[in-house]
């Protein structure tokens, strides 16, 4: 067998292995590679400060403004462009806990004082 053939066989084996691992990963929750990451420059600071994270793929991940945010290399924050199944299941079992530091009054008309401006555009997936 030529060196090139050996290489091809090895690549095939690697591909086969990757496929099996990936499919097994779907069951085990190791699935980050299949979810696009969106870095749109939004930093949900108050949400990160007040919300218990869920550790997913080794990183603290926060349910903020309808998306799962985590710290990406380079100091920026990004969110999954499509909700990972494991995180979806976690949040639909129980909404992530948030810390309330003061009682909040809701004035007539529903205007909420302070805080971050809501993100525009609604859904982002």
């Amino acid at each position, binding site marked *: 067998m030529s060196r090139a053939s050996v290489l091809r*066989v090895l690549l*095939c084996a690697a*591909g*086969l292995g*990757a*496929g*099996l691992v*990936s*499919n097994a*990963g*779907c069951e085990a929750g190791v*699935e980050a*590679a*299949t979810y696009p990451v969106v870095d749109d420059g939004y*930093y949900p*600071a*108050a*949400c*990160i*400060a*007040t*919300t*218990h*994270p*869920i*550790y997913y793929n*080794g*990183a*603290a991940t926060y349910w*903020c*403004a*309808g998306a799962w945010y985590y*710290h990406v290399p380079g100091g920026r924050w990004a969110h999954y462009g*499509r*909700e*990972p*199944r494991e995180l*979806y299941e976690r949040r639909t079992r129980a*909404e992530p*806990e*948030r*810390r*309330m*530091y*003061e*009682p*909040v*009054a809701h*004035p007539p008309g529903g*205007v*909420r*004082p*302070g*805080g*971050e401006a*809501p*993100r525009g555009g*609604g*859904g982002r*997936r």
Partner: protein
Amino acid sequence: MNVLKRSTRLVVLALLGTSVVLGCGGSSASGRPPSVVAGASAEEADATAALVEHDRHHHHGGVTLLIAMSLDTMGVAQDERAALEKIRADLHARMEPAHAAERTLVNTLADGLAGGTLDPAKVDAALAQLTSAAAMVHEASVDALNQLHATLTPAQRATLVDKLEAHWSVWQKANGEDDDRLVHLTAELGLSPDQIAKIRAGVAEGMKAVPPFDPQEVTAHIHAFGEAFRSSTFDARTLTTGGAATAHMVGWGATRMAHLFEALSPVLTPEQREKLVRMLRGHASHNPSAEGG
């Protein structure tokens, strides 16, 4: 034969590749995650507003207070919570002298508002006492911070630093934008446009004598803390900027708060004054971040 083998391999790879792409992602018919989710929930918005309100009135521990608050929501397992709670309580104990000084300041402001006149000498003395106590907080907290580092896993240390940076970002917003604060007070007290204009002018006048806040000093300290805390070894004693950064942050935040109340005092109606005094005394009498989550 070789061609057949190669073709077979390619088909297998293509199928597996497809499965890699399509196989995950909650794509089963049942329990599929929604493709579109709306923005922040009401609970999230409330938690944000509550944190901003907290940060406007509770300054005493500066960066150490932000670290202690970061421990409130670490997402750790139940069996790890007790150890973190002990360290959190310890940090709050180390901040108590500064917290007592803050109580004095807020009560001084409330007394002045209730009587219709704020005594500038009393307010300045309370501010100086608070700033001086805040300068000691970092040094008093080094053992607790070292113990915290030893207790957390590397991933948890990174989470703590992320949270500290997030708290710092919120603190700057809470203490840097008078318009947001006035929106809140307008909602709470029913301020008229004329009152708001007078308050705005009063704050601007009062802050003329105050050196502008330089967030870089605190940002640099938080950055140094973060770099050191993420490392496998850590000694809070080597962070020499903690005292000055905290004193700067606490002194400025408290001064801004004092000037706001000085500007409010002459323009309030008796009902508004009574309500504001009640709100201030409420802030002075509790320490929500110390109460645990």
